């Protein structure tokens, strides 16, 4: 078992426009990428649970082997910069991904 943070080269979150948050998991070798992809651990239900959203709020969950990367995009509960927002750029919401365990 390995933590996702120890397998990924890049693990980040950012806004994609003011109303969506996008998570990127990027690898530097195809072996690690395929291990994570095939594990099935990155799926809508798991992300919805981690981020306390409904699976319907996830607009994209894409595996892109050519770039050795996985992307998950979902609707922000509060849009960027308005009342109640804690992270204008959405750049520090990636920590929950760290501890996803990959067999």
């Amino acid at each position: 078992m390995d933590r996702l943070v120890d397998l990924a080269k890049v693990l980040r979150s950012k806004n994609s426009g003011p109303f969506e948050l996008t998570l990127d998991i990027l690898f530097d070798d195809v072996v690690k990428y395929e291990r994570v992809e095939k594990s099935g651990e990155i799926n809508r239900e798991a992300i919805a649970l981690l981020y306390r959203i409904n699976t319907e709020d996830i607009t994209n969950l894409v595996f892109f082997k050519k770039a050795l990367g996985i992307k998950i995009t979902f609707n922000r509960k509060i849009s960027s910069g308005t009342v109640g927002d804690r992270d204008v750029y959405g750049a520090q919401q990636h920590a929950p991904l760290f501890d996803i365990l990959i067999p």
Partner: protein
Amino acid sequence: MEKQIKILSPCGILGYGFPIKHFMIGMEEEPDAIVVDAGSTDAGPHKLGAGVAIVSRLACKKDLSVLINESRNHKIPLIIGSAGGSGARNHTEWTLDIIYEILKEKNINCKIAIIWADIPVDRVKIAIRENKIEGLSQNVPILTEELVDVTNGIVAQMGVEPILEALENKADIIVCGRAYDPAPFAAVGIYHGFDEALSYHLGKILECGALCAEPGSAKDCIMGVLKEGSFQVYPTNINRKCTPISVAAHTFYEKDHPYVLKGPGIVLNLENCEFEAISESSVSVKGSKLSKTPIYKIKLEGARQKLFRTFVIAGVRDPILINIIEKVEALVIESVKEYFSEIPKEDYSINFYNYGKNGVMGELEASLNIPHEIGVLFEVLAKTQSQASAICSLVRSTFMHYGYEGRKSTSGNLAFPFSPSDIEFGVVYEFSVYHLMEVKDGKEMFPIEYKNI
């Protein structure tokens, strides 16, 4: 020698700065255009709402001086996308002001094209009535005419069409209001007869400066070379390099989808691209595909004023208080609401952010660690600045002296770093417009003005 053109991108945002040395190395290659992106919605709604730039005038002028000098020396066009950051009239004029100043100081004559991206309120209202407006995602509030009225000006992202016209009219400097980030770059490629898909894909990479390189940076230059059937990218700094993975992964950045990119009138599909290393630091790309949307739609952006904010930052070090901080904060709010019972509760809000505990992630925070200190940020949002400050003052004094159960430090609960402790923030804005609007074509909403200096 096969047909090719070179486009030099100095940095990811005009005003972020770039090493002159690397820029001049790029200029030695005799590029056909210098293109730079000046904008983003990244920094939140405040810039668009308040009509201010995202970089300082000093930084913007510093960058522009170099770019204008070199583009005029080499007699190649300089294109600026999303001028002033948000690309509305105020922001564009702010940029033009700097440009005129530089031209005057350096005694340069040239032809300037200005492409405005401000969308008239009436035009948007007609589109609402005709059902030709849709939110960009399902959580974007429905656009109503009332919402349009309280929005401080609406801009739209232009595509290549008006920029192409400016290039055809031999403008030396093209200042675009809000633009689809890759568009100013793509326009150069398309103007020279290169494939549209490759031109847009190249634009998507170049607009962020050297972010697609390793190590990546938005404050360094990147060169793009367009050829028949492919394009090449490489940094002009020998200490950075583009690799097939760094370039392929770049389309992930800030995008909702890794290989399907939507722009004005187009959809770019990069799923079947091939990325090949041609040297240690240079990558060749081919296989980008583009399709035109049946109806041309432009992306509207607008921000509105919400409320006024007054805030306080203070530290808490008492372990007994830290243990029950959220309980105490709730009691403070209750006490303040009771005191100000004449102010309708819906008119204001009091929020606490406990840094060290869960300031960044709020209720998503899974960590149960109890920190030895907490940085408390609390704010009051109200309809006027003076009301926000009055309520905040009471929150602060109540919290400071609150006698919670089990308290031993009866002198005061908060460590203020500043005197005065209460800071008047000003207006809080919110993105009220983030919608697609159907239009006739790519030029309809973007008038071009020419000036000979």
